[in-house]
């Protein structure tokens, strides 16, 4: 049996702002993936030796690279925030009969984010 699929224009997500925000959230993963590929290339250059690594660091200074990273950061932050705010929905914690307030589940995510970011910066910058 072939299921019926209602015809839908490919631009359905432009019709309403919640749909658009949904699409932006899905799109964040493209920028995150692109960034980790750049990170992988950086590690490869580090393996190849000093000249390759320094060329890689130099290429990060091109205006195109800086613009890309700024756009990627905006999308990455959108992912971080939407992801944190989904946690009370994915994990409905109850104490007895009472459902724990969503804010109490969201807040620790921000604390963990701040602590981990500080640790990573400390390791890299030493």
């Amino acid at each position, binding site marked *: 049996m072939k299921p019926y*699929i209602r015809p*839908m*224009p*490919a631009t359905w*997500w432009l019709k309403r702002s919640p749909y658009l925000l949904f*699409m932006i959230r*899905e*799109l964040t*993963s*493209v920028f*995150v*993936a692109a*960034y*980790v*590929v*750049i*990170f*992988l290339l*950086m*590690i*490869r250059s*580090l*393996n190849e030796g*000093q000249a390759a*690594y*320094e060329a890689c*660091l130099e290429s*990060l*200074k091109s205006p195109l*690279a*800086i613009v*890309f*990273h*700024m756009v*990627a*950061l905006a999308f*990455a*932050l959108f*992912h*971080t925030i939407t*992801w*944190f705010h989904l946690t009370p929905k994915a994990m409905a914690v109850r104490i007895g009969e009472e459902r724990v307030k969503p804010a109490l589940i969201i807040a620790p*995510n921000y604390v*963990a*984010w701040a602590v*981990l*970011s500080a640790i*990573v*910066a400390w*390791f*890299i*910058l*030493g």
Partner: protein
Amino acid sequence: MAKSNEPIWWSLFSAGGVVAALLVPIHIVLFGIAWPLGMLPADALEFSRMQALLAHPLTRLYCFVLISLPLFHWAHRFRFTLVDLGLHGAAMLIAVLCYGAAIAGTIVAALTLWG
């Protein structure tokens, strides 16, 4: 109930979402913005220091997790986004290509870090 491999992909998607949310922003800020704009000391990312940092087994494991899991996160989201955009007919092919790309990226990352 028919067996499904969906829980595996969903777990990888979810773990990748956590890694991307917590760790990717600081990496973009440090390497992609602060360094090129001269906001870090000139020798902050010096070759010998970074090489020594990467020589530690835990750093390698960290880099592997940071690269691999967000690729699976992307694969899972992008797969369903393309289907949502109307590519219902190619759903299986899209799934194979997306997860395949994430697996390929993971293998390249492993070879780069431990090869």
